[in-house]
Each structure stands twice: as structure tokens, then as C-alpha cells.
């Protein structure tokens, strides 16, 4: 009888496993929805551009030229050109899942922010991180050991792609004083950083939302 009770009662570890599984399913559901919404937004922006090209051919040149300029500024047009890629990776012995965020073997969101800021300071024309277009309001943050760019999950290796003057960008990246913590961890072989010059880099259009409901134009 007592054995029967013991085997029927759910153990704490079962509860924990169920809770983890429910949490993973919930997060997966949100991520699937996010992927769908982002691809739909890219599709709609391309469709809008196609329609606008049609209208342009019918002769409303001036306002469309202004719109195209604004889209370029806001990261709503794809850009290709000469540039570089910075690949940041965790230590081969570090395991991101279950690891403590303060592990020196993990690339931190702050490392990516610093590299992106450095590319901006080097007047890069366009930047992306693992295919996520970076605009002025793009947050680069972390939840536990997961890194989010534009509030979307990204996994290592983290590739910062930038279009701009490669010489200026390389010069900035080579300055150890600009990235002291990252260089220190690279030197200790805790993490890795690789910079590659590229003749052709493609930066995709921004696939997120643009918030403006609190902003008014001074007429």
C-alpha cells in the first residue's frame, strides 16, 4: 500500500520537468509567431515598394524620391557594398545553455553593443548582427544567457556585418583601448574575435516595428 502511494504521487522532479517543458513550449510558440510576423513585415514592405515603383512610372516622382531617401535613412532598404565582418564566438568549452551569464567564456550582449557602437563611430553606412538590421533604436540585450537583437533571439557565432570604409573600421577595431574587456578575454582565449574584410556585404532591411505614436512634428 505504501509503495502504491509512493509510485502514484508525482515527484518534485516531474513537476519541474513539466514546468520546464511548458515554458519551452510557450517560448517556442512566441518565437514561431515572431518569425512569421517578421517575414510578413518584410514581404509587405517589398510589396509596398513594388506598388510605389508602379506609381512612380505614372509620374509622381518628387514625393517618391523623398520617401526613398527616408527609407534609406531608416534602414528600410537593402544595402550591398564593401565592408567587413566581425565574428565573435564563445569559448569552445563554454556551454551557453545552463551556463552562468557571468561566465567569461561567453560573448556578452555588451560585447556586441560595443562592436556595433564602434562601427557606428567609424561612420558605417549599414550594420547587421546575425542578419538583424541595426537601426538607431535597435536594442541589443540579454535574457539569461540568451542574446536578443531587436528583441529577437540570436545564437553564436555572432556576426556583425558592416558596410563602410574598411580601412577606418579596421583601424577602430584594432585599437585595443576601444574594446579593452573583449581584447583581454580574447588574449586569455576565453572568447574569440575574427575580423574579415569583404568585397561584398549584404545588409537586409529592418524587419521590426517602428514606434512613433508619442512623436509629433513641429509644423
Amino acid at each position, binding site marked *: 500500500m505504501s509503495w502504491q502511494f509512493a509510485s502514484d504521487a508525482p515527484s518534485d522532479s516531474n513537476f519541474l520537468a513539466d514546468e520546464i517543458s511548458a515554458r519551452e513550449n510557450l517560448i517556442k510558440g512566441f518565437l514561431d509567431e515572431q518569425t512569421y510576423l517578421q517575414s510578413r513585415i518584410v514581404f509587405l514592405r517589398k510589396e*509596398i515598394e513594388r506598388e510605389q515603383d508602379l506609381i512612380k512610372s505614372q509620374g509622381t516622382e518628387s514625393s517618391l524620391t523623398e520617401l526613398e531617401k*527616408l527609407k534609406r535613412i531608416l534602414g528600410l532598404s537593402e544595402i550591398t557594398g564593401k565592408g567587413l565582418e566581425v565574428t565573435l564566438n564563445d569559448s569552445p568549452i563554454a556551454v551557453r545553455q545552463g551556463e552562468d551569464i557571468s561566465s567569461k567564456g561567453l560573448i556578452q550582449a555588451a560585447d556586441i553593443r560595443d562592436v556595433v557602437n564602434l562601427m557606428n563611430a567609424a561612420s558605417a553606412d549599414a550594420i547587421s548582427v546575425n542578419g538583424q538590421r541595426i537601426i538607431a533604436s535597435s536594442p541589443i540585450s540579454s535574457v539569461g544567457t540568451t542574446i536578443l537583437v531587436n528583441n529577437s533571439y540570436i545564437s553564436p557565432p555572432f556576426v556583425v556585418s558592416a558596410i563602410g570604409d574598411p580601412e577606418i573600421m579596421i583601424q577602430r577595431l584594432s585599437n585595443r583601448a576601444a574594446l579593452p574587456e573583449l581584447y583581454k578575454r580574447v588574449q586569455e582565449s576565453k572568447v574569440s574575435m575574427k575580423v574579415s574584410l569583404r568585397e561584398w556585404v549584404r545588409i537586409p532591411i529592418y524587419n521590426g516595428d517602428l514606434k512613433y505614436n508619442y512623436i509629433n512634428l513641429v509644423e
Partner: protein
Amino acid sequence: MDPRKIYILVVAILLGIFVVAQNKSFNKLDVLSRDGKSNVFQEIQILKEKNLSLKSEMDDLEANLKLLTSQGDALKAIDDEIKRYTKISGQSPIFGPGFYIKFEGKITTPWLVDFINELWSTGAQAVAVNGIRITNETVGFDSLPQGQVLLNGSILSSPFVIEVIGESSTILGNIEVGGGILQRMKAALPGMKVSYERKDIIQMQ
């Protein structure tokens, strides 16, 4: 050996150990403590809010596409889109409700980058630092050899006044939370003074 000398030696050794430990803990404050420690509830909340924003953006784009494809409304759709993008591009002066936050004392470039990142992350719609609006065309933060902060080719000095347009309660609530960005900055930058004020109207160029 004189017991007094032994005593001084022991105190000196203990002091040495304390200084090394202190130094190590300050070093640890650098990159590893710049990001906050979030939990699973925050993770789910971020995903939920992100998807709601994406859904709203998708609805706007669908409405815009519909207008563009209907003969008489196409030009209006283009004008609306220009107006919308002008608000966020930094090409025209803007105003809106929000707040300003003032930092007095020495602040390093990474902490300014982190603070502004946190503002965007918590819903800021427009941000300016000492009168320089942060847009896609702003040249990023830089440090000069003497430690001054450079933004868009201008040297910034204390006080650093950051103006924000957006939902003040949500943004301030998030940055002030225990373990949040303000607490982390105060821990890393002793002596820094912080004050803020909500405003009905914040103007930016």
C-alpha cells in the same frame, strides 16, 4: 622577532589580500555586470510585447498597401508614409511627452551606450544626449584619450542630459528597478549624481 613587528606584518598581509580582492571585484564590474540578470517571466513578457508591436506594424503596413492599390488613395498613402518616417528619421524637429534624466560626474562611453540601449529596449521613441538626437545618421559614441565622450563629432561633458520622448512611467519604472541599469551604473560609477523630471513636452531638433 618583536611581536609588534609581527602584528604589523600580519595587518599588512591582510590589507594586501583585501586590496587584491577589491580590485578583482571592480574588474568584474566591467563587461560582465553591464547586462542585468533577467528571469523567465521577463523573457516571456519581452516576447509577448515584441509580437504585439510586430502585429501592429503588420496591420499598419497592410492598411498602407491597401490604400496604395486603390486608385484615389495612393497619393495619400505615400504622404502618410512620408510623415510617419519623417517623425523618426531625425530630418525634422519633433516634440512629445517624456522626461529628461541628468547625470552629473564622470561617465564612461560604454555606460552611456548601455543606458541608451536600455531606453530603446523599454520603449523610448526618440532620444537626445546634450541636445544631439540619436538617429540612424548619428555617428556613434567614442572615447577620447583623456576619457571625454565624443558623439557625432562633438565632445560631451558633464552634466549629461538625456531627453526621452515616450511612455515615461514604463521607461522610468524599468530603468529604476532593483538590479536595473541605474543601479548597475551607480555601483560602477561612484560619485555620479542622477536626477530626472517628467515633462509634458520634450522638444528635439
